[in-house]
C-alpha cells in the first residue's frame, strides 16, 4: 500500500462536531483519487491533514512506509515530500513564474535546478512564461504554474484543492483534460478535492464521497452510478445520473 490513512479524527478548535470522523483510506501508487463532497463535509481537511498543515487528534498516516503521524510522530509539512495546489493557487506575488517553481528546489544543484525548471515548464506548456509575474497571467495559466510548482520537487503525493473552482466553464473542460494528461504523464499519486460530480467522474480512478466528516461511498466512478440507483445516496448535482445515462457529458 502506497498511502495509508487509518482511523483519523480531527476537529477545529472552536467547533462542536468533528470535521473528520474515523477516516480510513488506502491508495495505490499512481492512483488518482477524488474526494467529493459539499462544502463543510470535511473534504479539504483531509488534504490539510495529509500535508501536515493540521494535526489529527488520533489515527495514523503513512506514505511509502514512512510514518507521517501517529501517537509518537508528527512530521512537519516541509519534511513530508507532499506537493499541494491551493484553491487560489497561492503563487508568491513577489516572485516570477520561474522563481515560484524554483522555490521548492533549493536542495538541488544549480544545473539540476535549471533542467527541472525546463522540464516542468514544458510539462505544463508554459516555456515562454518563466520571466512573467503571476498577476500577468490568466487564470488557467496561473493554475498550471501552481501545478508545475507542486510537481517540481518530485513529491510522493500531490494534493489539489478544488482545482477548477476559479475557472470559467469553458476553460474548466479544457484544463480538466490537461490536468489528467499532466498527472498521468508525471505518474504521481494524487488526491484532488471537488464538489463537482463530473470532475470526479472524468478525472478520478477512484472516488471517495464524504458527508459530515464520514465516508459515504468509496469506489470506481462506474460503480458509483450503480450506487446512486440502488441506494438512497443522492448525487451532489441534480439529474447527474440521468445525464450520464443519456451520454450528455
Amino acid at each position, binding site marked *: 500500500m502506497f498511502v495509508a490513512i487509518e482511523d483519523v479524527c480531527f476537529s477545529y478548535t472552536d467547533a462542536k462536531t468533528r470535521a473528520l470522523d474515523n477516516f480510513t483510506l488506502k491508495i495505490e501508487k499512481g492512483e488518482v483519487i477524488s474526494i467529493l463532497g459539499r462544502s463543510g463535509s470535511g473534504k479539504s481537511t483531509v488534504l490539510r491533514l495529509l500535508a*501536515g498543515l493540521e*494535526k489529527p487528534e488520533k489515527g495514523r498516516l503513512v506514505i511509502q512506509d514512512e510514518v507521517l503521524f501517529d501517537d509518537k510522530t508528527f512530521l*512537519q509539512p*516541509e519534511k513530508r515530500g507532499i506537493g*499541494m495546489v491551493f484553491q487560489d493557487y497561492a503563487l508568491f506575488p513577489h516572485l516570477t513564474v520561474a522563481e515560484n517553481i524554483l*522555490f521548492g528546489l533549493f536542495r538541488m544543484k544549480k544545473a539540476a535546478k535549471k533542467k527541472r525548471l525546463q522540464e516542468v515548464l514544458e510539462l505544463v506548456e508554459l516555456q515562454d512564461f518563466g520571466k512573467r509575474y503571476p498577476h500577468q497571467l490568466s487564470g488557467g495559466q496561473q493554475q498550471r504554474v501552481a501545478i508545475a510548482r507542486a510537481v517540481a520537487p518530485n513529491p510522493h503525493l500531490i494534493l489539489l484543492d478544488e482545482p477548477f473552482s476559479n475557472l470559467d466553464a469553458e476553460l474548466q473542460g479544457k484544463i480538466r483534460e490537461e490536468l489528467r494528461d499532466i498527472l498521468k504523464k508525471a505518474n504521481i499519486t494524487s488526491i484532488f478535492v471537488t464538489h463537482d460530480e463530473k470532475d470526479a467522474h472524468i478525472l478520478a480512478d477512484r472516488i471517495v464521497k464524504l458527508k459530515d466528516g464520514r465516508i459515504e461511498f468509496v469506489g470506481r466512478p462506474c460503480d458509483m452510478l450503480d450506487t446512486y440507483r440502488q441506494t438512497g445516496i443522492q448525487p451532489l448535482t441534480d439529474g447527474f445520473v440521468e445525464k450520464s445515462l443519456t451520454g450528455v457529458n
Partner: protein
Amino acid sequence: MQHRFTNINAWTVSAVIIIFLLFLPNLTIVTGLFTPSNENWEHMKEFVLWGFMKNSLILTAASAFFTILIGLSLAWLIAQYDFPMRHFLKWALILPLSIPPFIGAYTYHGMLSYTGVIQTTLRENFGMAINPAYFDIMNLPGAVFIYTMFLFPYVYSIAQVYLSRQSASLIESTRILGKGPWKTFFQVVLPISRISIIAGASLVVLEVLNDYGVVKYYGVQTFTTAIFQSWFGLGDIESAIKLAASLMGFVILILMIEKILRGRRQYSYSSTKVRPLPLIPLSGWKAAAATGYGFVILSLAFVIPVAQLIDWTVLTYGTIPMGEFMNYVKNSVFVAGLSATLIIVFALIVGNFARMVRGRLGKLLPRLTVLGYSIPGAVIAVAVVTAFIGLDRFLTPFYVWAGFSTTLVLSVSIVLLVTAYIIRFFAIGYNSIETGYDKIGTDFRDASRTLGLGVTKTFFKVDMPMMKGAIISGFILVFIDVLKEIPLTLILRPFNFDTLSTKAFQYASDEKIMEASQASLLIIGISALAIVFFYKFLERELD
C-alpha cells in the same frame, strides 16, 4: 492545548519573552486595581470623577466620529475619483500626522488669541471688533478640533489603502446595480471599510485617551487629569494607579470590541487576483469641490499651522541659542530610529507567533502588549523606572564583578528610554504588522511549507517580502510618534540628553510658543520627509 507544531520553539520562546517584558511594567498598574480605596479616592469619586469621565467620553467619541468622517470621506474621494491635484493630495493628506497635537494646540491658540494674527488683522486692517469669544478655541469642542485635525490621517491612510486595493468589484457592482455615489458610500463603502475604520479610529481613541498636553492647556478636565491630580496634587499614587488601571480596563474593552467586530473571518486576499479600481474622472464644479475639500482640510491641518510656525521662527530668529540644534536632531533621529526598528522586529516575532498558535489564550496573549498605548506616558515612566531599578539591583553582583562602582547602570542609560518607547508604541507597530499578516493570510505560508521550507525560512523568503509595505508603514508611524513623544522623553532621558521634542516642550511649557517654533518645525520637517519617503516607496512597489 495541544501542540500542533513542534518546531516553533524558537519563535514561541522569543515571542513569549517579548510579551512578558512588554507586559511586566503594566503589571504594577493592574495590581493597583485591587488595592482598597482611601479617602482621596472617595473624594475624587464624590466631586470630580464623573465629570472627568463624561468629558473623556465626549472627547473620544467626538474625535473618533470626526476623524472617521473626514478620514473616510477623503479616502473614498482619493480611491475612487480623479480630480485635479489628486495625486498630490493623496500623500500630502498624511502630513498632518507630523505635527505633535500639543504643538498644534498651542499654535492654533496662538493664532486665534486676542494678540494672534486673525484677530489682530481684523482689528487693525478692517477695524472690526468681533466678540473675541467667537475665537475661543480653548474648550472641549476646540480640543476635539485639534485631535481631529492632527489625528485624522490615521483613519485616512489605512482606509485609503484598503479602499483602493480591495474593493473594486464590490463598488463596481453597486454602481451597476444603479446606486448613486452617496448610496454607494453609505451602503457599501462604509460597511466594507469597517475593519480599516476601526483600526484607524482605535488608534485615534487611544491617542486621545492618554494625551495630556492638549487638554491641560485647553482647560478640559479628563480622566488623565484625575490621574495626575491624585498622583501629583494629592501625592496619592495608589489612587492614581487605580485610575490608570480603570482606564486600562476601558481600553481592554475597546480592544475586545474591535476584535469582535473584526470577527472570525479571515480578511485576506491573494494578491494575484486583486484588480485596482479604475478612477472615475470628475469635471466641472464636482472636480473643483473635491480638490477644494482636500485643500481646505490640508490647510487647516498642516499648511496654516506650519505657516504660523515659520512666521514665529522668523520673528524669534537669533533670540534663542541654535548651536546645539544639530545635536538635538541627531538624538531625536537616533532614538526614534532605534525604537522603531526594535518595535518592528518584536512585532514581526509576536505577530508570527500569534498566527501560529491556536486557542484563545494564544490569541489573547499578543493583545496584552498593546496596553502600553492606553496609559498616560508619565504612568508608564514610573512603571518602567521601577522595573529597571529592580533589574539593576538584580544585576548588581554582575556590575561589581565587571568593575562598575555604581549600581544604577541600565536605569540611567538610554536603554531605559528606548524600553519605555517600545512599551508605549508597540501597539502602533504591531497594528501595522498584524494587518500585514492578516492580509497575506496563511495560504502562502502553507504553500511554502509544502514546498519544503521551515517556519523560519518561510518567514524570511515569503512573509517578509510580501509584507514590505506593512513593515515600512509600521516603521514610519512609530518613528514619527517617537519623534513627537513628550512625557517619557522628558522624564526618562539620560543626563544632558535633549531631543527636538523636549526642546519644543521646554519653551511651550513656559508659555513661550514662539520660541518653541524652531524645534517644532524641525520635528515636522523630519516627519514629513519620512512620510514622503514612505509614499514614494509605496508607489514604486505598486507599479
